[in-house]
């Protein structure tokens, strides 16, 4: 396009075409898998492809989807966030305490809860960049700390909110679709826009893909990575207050384990664990795919325990494909 078309890699086309297969499977595997599962479920269960089930599917996926969207930024920036389960529980507790003990009202409390998540994310980012702690260990450590604080604040008890209107965020609907689905859509769009259209997004890909080259190009890698952790914390905070609003109770360990669902969704989507590659739409598909497996088991009435085996096998396969695709490109 820029100049005349000239074959540039003379000696390599053969090798490249052979290796491309692995890369293509990895790049578009999530689309193929998603479509295949969708069609299979539509054909085998009359209850699957219905408006009610689709609505329900999106509603169930929303919290994990929101967390995974923020987590995708962290992954692309070369980090890893294990603390989102703890952070989302903590955000719910803060929101509950704020609602019960201050006069800031329903929406104010929910916003304060989400901002508590943001604060935790910034803390993670600083620990990883300034403190130079490996991201996996850093967020494991902050998880433990945050769980601890949550217990201290609640004395280990449930935080229970009886007001009916407190459930507005979690259970309210527009055209029959629950609010969380719209929140997820909005958050995913914001993250996607940041990645694809802004300076911050470019810097995130650069910081994750080759931090040294990014630094030598004038990118403040530490600041960018911290910002990705902040977004992940914010996502966890939002998901936390949504889940809280749905049930009206918050507990320090209410959401533990959700981090693994989020990480699974990100990786299934094809965003690389090693940073520098990935996209939000992938994570959205990955989250749907994961939820569809559970949904399918329910609808088909098969032994639900098997879904964990299936999810684990699919996750391992996805990571293995990623590794093979990477190896063939360097």
């Amino acid at each position, binding site marked *: *396009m820029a100049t005349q078309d000239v074959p*540039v890699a003379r000696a390599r086309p053969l090798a490249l075409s052979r290796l491309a297969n692995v890369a293509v499977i990895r790049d578009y595997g999530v689309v193929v898998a998603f479509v295949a599962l969708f069609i299979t479920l539509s054909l085998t269960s009359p209850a699957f492809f219905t408006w009610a089930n689709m609505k329900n599917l999106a509603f169930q996926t929303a919290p994990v989807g929101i967390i995974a969207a923020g987590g995708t930024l962290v992954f692309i920036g070369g980090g890893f966030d294990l603390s989102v389960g703890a952070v989302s529980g903590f955000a719910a507790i803060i929101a509950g305490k704020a609602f019960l003990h201050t006069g800031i009202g329903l929406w104010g409390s929910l916003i304060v809860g989400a901002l508590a998540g943001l604060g935790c994310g910034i803390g993670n980012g600083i620990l990883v960049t300034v403190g130079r702690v490996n991201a996996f260990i850093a967020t494991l450590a902050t998880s433990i700390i945050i769980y601890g604080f949550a217990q201290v604040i609640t004395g280990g008890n449930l935080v229970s909110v009886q007001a009916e209107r407190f459930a507005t965020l979690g259970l309210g609907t527009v055209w029959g679709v629950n609010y969380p689905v719209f929140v997820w859509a909005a958050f995913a769009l914001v993250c996607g826009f940041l990645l694809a259209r802004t300076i911050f997004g470019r*810097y995130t*890909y*650069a910081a994750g*893909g080759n931090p040294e080259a990014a*630094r030598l190009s004038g990118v403040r890698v530490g600041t960018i990575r911290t910002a990705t952790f902040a977004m992940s914390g914010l996502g966890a905070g939002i998901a936390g207050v949504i889940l809280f609003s749905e049930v009206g109770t918050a507990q320090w360990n209410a959401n533990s384990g959700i981090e693994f669902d989020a990480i699974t969704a990100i990786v299934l989507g094809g965003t690389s664990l090693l940073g520098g590659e990935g996209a939000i739409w992938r994570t959205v598909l990955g989250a749907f795919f994961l939820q569809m497996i559970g949904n399918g088991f329910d609808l088909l009435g098969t032994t639900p325990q098997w879904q964990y085996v299936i999810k684990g096998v699919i996750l391992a396969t996805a990571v293995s494909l990623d590794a093979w695709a990477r190896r063939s490109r360097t």
Partner: protein
Amino acid sequence: MSSEPPEAHVELRQVSKHFGGVQALAGIDLPIGRGSIHALVGENGAGKSTLGKIIAGVLRQDSGDLIVDGRRTAYRSPRDAIADGTTIITQEPTLVPHRSVLENVFLGAESSVVGVIERRKMARRYRALVEQTGIELPPRALARSLSVADQQKVEILRAIARDTRLIVMDEPTSALTRDEGEKLFALVRGLRDRGATIVYVSHFLDEVLALADTVTVLRDGRLVRTGAADSETPDRLVSAMLGRRLDLTFPEKEPPAAEAPVVLSVRSLSRPPAVRDVSLQIRAGEIVGLAGLIGSGRSEVARAIFGADRAVGEIEVEGRGVRLRSPRQAIDHGVVMIPEDRKSQGLLMLRSIVDNITLPHLDDVSKAGILSRRSERRRVREATARLDVRAKSTNAPVNTLSGGNQQKVLFAKWLFRPPRVFIADEPTRGIDVGAKMAIYELIHSLAKQGIGVLLISSEHEEILGLAHRVLVMRNGSVVAEFDQETMNEDVLLHAAFATAQDKVA
């Protein structure tokens, strides 16, 4: 071995090797005598390390034969070579740092009964090794607690424990003090006297002449000559390394105007031990070459100026004192750098040409942090057309481009917004001749536009062909300066190697 061993321990026949478009070794024929110390010398990039690594199975030749003990070999890994009695020892010891000397020595060759280590038997073997080699090291000391010199001794013990009969040593003294070096030499001679063959790769000519029985000089991947060490002198060796490559042509030099202002002034730049008290000035339109051996501190000077590494010293850009503490600050002051290694430091290999070129300049193609992709793409197309970057599309990931085009992308990246000072560290490494000449034209045209250029290259003909002035570095300091009249390959090499004409204390 039942039959009489052949005279040559190793014989290379027509061995060739290339990396990308660069011929690293071309048709090397060389016998290496059993029980001798055989040194390989040459300039940076002459192919001496490559040859050593082929002998040790670290690299594999593209064509030609490696014959060991009279048998053709086909090593696929260092492991195969070890099984054949050949081990390589490099300047960076490869020990398990948290384990003891004894464990490291017998790593992979432990005495054991059904997997259980026989401590006493290993201690006995260790004592036997100590007697055999004369290397005394406390067997229980942790490897990481040892000096580099002692770590190398552990590697030598390990080599002997594996029944090694040929040791390739690649620049073994570069991390050692003079005293430690002397001890290593005594050890190496001892190994030879016990019948081992040593292939010794080094660019320290004095030590090579003191140690080796035979010396082979390489130049541009070709064998210049092989001879007895006692018939050589440092000057004769340097002369053998000389020789301009004929296949390169350079643009006509245009010296900067006499009144051209100084664009970059560096005073007393230090980052011990790599950089010691370096001062230099570059005028608008001037190309200053920075020569010296690999490891002499050239890249470290460039990185310190660019703010990539912390350093002390004063820097002025266009007469104004500046503090360049990060690449961002340097870029904002118009100082840019093409780093030494384009894959690990220069490019985002999986991202597109567009993403790579605009990465430092996103402010120019965005509003309030939001990219205007149309203007970005238009300006990138202009830049790639100007530099003749050849690719199917500006959206192509850079890992699909040839080395020469990758390098042009790097140039386009730093010329996107015209700089005042352009630092190029090994700008033509690993690219073919045609692309090299395009880069030469480019550097020449930058100077013509009034940009000050600092050119680092291991290829002396490049520096001689392009630079208006040359500084030579050795051990972190600038040891010589030559202008247009005084520069030639002979004086550069002598200054870089510190031989007769330019001895420093």
